[in-house]
């Protein structure tokens, strides 16, 4: 009996994810990766905290650009990358909400 129960939240918070569901069957196209990148950057832009917002936007751009430029042919690796980024997108969405629940002061330059 496995003692390590799944720590992934099975109830996904992601709405309207017909194009973004974990793809176990067909090949992940570059178009799908670009779509996921766009969605991730959009969601990351919703962080109320300036530092988190900038960090996650820059990170999403860097990770996706680096991966897409590699032109990876191994389907397993592409699927793994896609699934990892999808899980991270769910984390970002949840944390954006939590950030909105606890608002903080703005920086002097943000005013």
């Amino acid at each position, binding site marked *: 009996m496995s*003692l*390590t*129960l799944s720590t992934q939240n099975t109830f996904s918070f992601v709405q309207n994810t017909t194009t973004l569901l974990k793809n176990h069957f067909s090949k992940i196209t570059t178009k799908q990766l670009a779509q996921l990148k766009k969605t991730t950057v959009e969601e990351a832009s919703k962080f109320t905290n300036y530092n988190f917002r900038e960090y996650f936007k820059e990170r999403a751009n860097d990770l996706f650009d680096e991966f897409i430029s590699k032109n990876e042919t191994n389907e397993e690796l592409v699927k793994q990358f896609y699934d990892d980024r999808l899980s991270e997108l769910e984390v970002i969405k949840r944390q954006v909400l939590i950030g909105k629940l606890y608002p903080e002061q703005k*920086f002097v330059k943000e005013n």
Partner: protein
Amino acid sequence: MLSISKIAIKKSPLSLSSYFSNTKPRYKFRSHYFDFQATSPTDPRVLDKMLPYMITKQGNAHSKTHMHGWEAEGGVEEARAHVSDLIHADPKEIIFTSGATESNNIAIKGVMNFLNPMKKHVITSQIEHKCVLESCKLLESKGFDVTYLPVQRNGIIDIGELKKAIRPDTGLVSIMGVNNEIGVLQPLKEIGNLCRSNKIKFHTDCAQMFGKLPIDVNDMKIDLMSISGHKIYGPKGVGALYVRRRPRVRLLALQSGGGQERGIRSGTLPSPIIVGLGEAARIAKSEMERDNRRIKKLADKLISQVMEKIPLVQLNGDKEKRYHGCVNLSFAFAEGESLLMNLKDFALSSGSACTSASLEPSYVLRALGVPDEYAHSSLRIGLGRFTTEKEIDFFVETLVTSVERLREMSPLYDMYLEGVDFTKINWSHD
């Protein structure tokens, strides 16, 4: 009744409402965070991992008979695997504690209490964290001998001095990996090899190094290592101690109880924050290279721009052998505390957080041989994963203006510009 009590509260100078009031911030705006050596913000990914363990998976990790316990234990063991993976250790060698201070206490006091009375000597350095120095002081009061090794001008230990200090009854050497005030990196591999060849236990406080620079406990021959959770974007209140099993490191536990964590640290494991530490370690492993590249670029930009725009600025500590996220700069003729008051839009430190309450100059800078007037005018600027280039630009602009303003007001600076030699002045009062 209510109105009378309200009046009573307002008039009383020690009223609870004013004492605990946090509804009105003292300063209207939030400051940009530049104090990553004191602590770091919890990464949202770490918080996301922790929350289920505070909401639904709230069981005691030591409950062996039901699902709640198994879930919590699963999370803890996963965290242990992530932490050990980052330092190339075995998961069984990781002991969870309440932080690096507790880990340092267990390592130093535990090992020496076990080795007493065969080994009575401890070697440490003058720039260690306060908890290591205080633990050594306590051992001294119990009859042990402690050698506090001096450091060179660049903050790095001289291996020759360490060799000379080793005695037949030396039981432990404790040297930190990266210093929290100046950011210098000690030669852990050389120290580890020296200790192993002399059969001495080697402890290193890697609170500022874990997850930021690569560590291999086998390559560096480290026997004990302290880890802190809140320095790597994890939660506060958790840390770990690496205790080598081959060759076995034996120590006496400080805290007695149910025998958890191999009997070294009894007590219920705080599973939510341990899971947080594990997730922080996992993220640190995958992001280390990218973070270091970014931070080095930001630090180089900060130092070069400041040195270009203001004269008489000194970087404390070695320029190359360091963690680039810790920048300690001294500004001649601009007092550190006044500089901090002028930089209200930035969260900075002019000494480490644990010693900032006192007005003495930092003992670390004194150990480097930095003169008191430079030590009093030093700023520790901490850069981290979430620092942006725009913040650095804004900081440099404000810092330059503040230093220039303070120097304009300084009569000593005027004397310096006139070419007065301060060493020839007789400062006595008539």
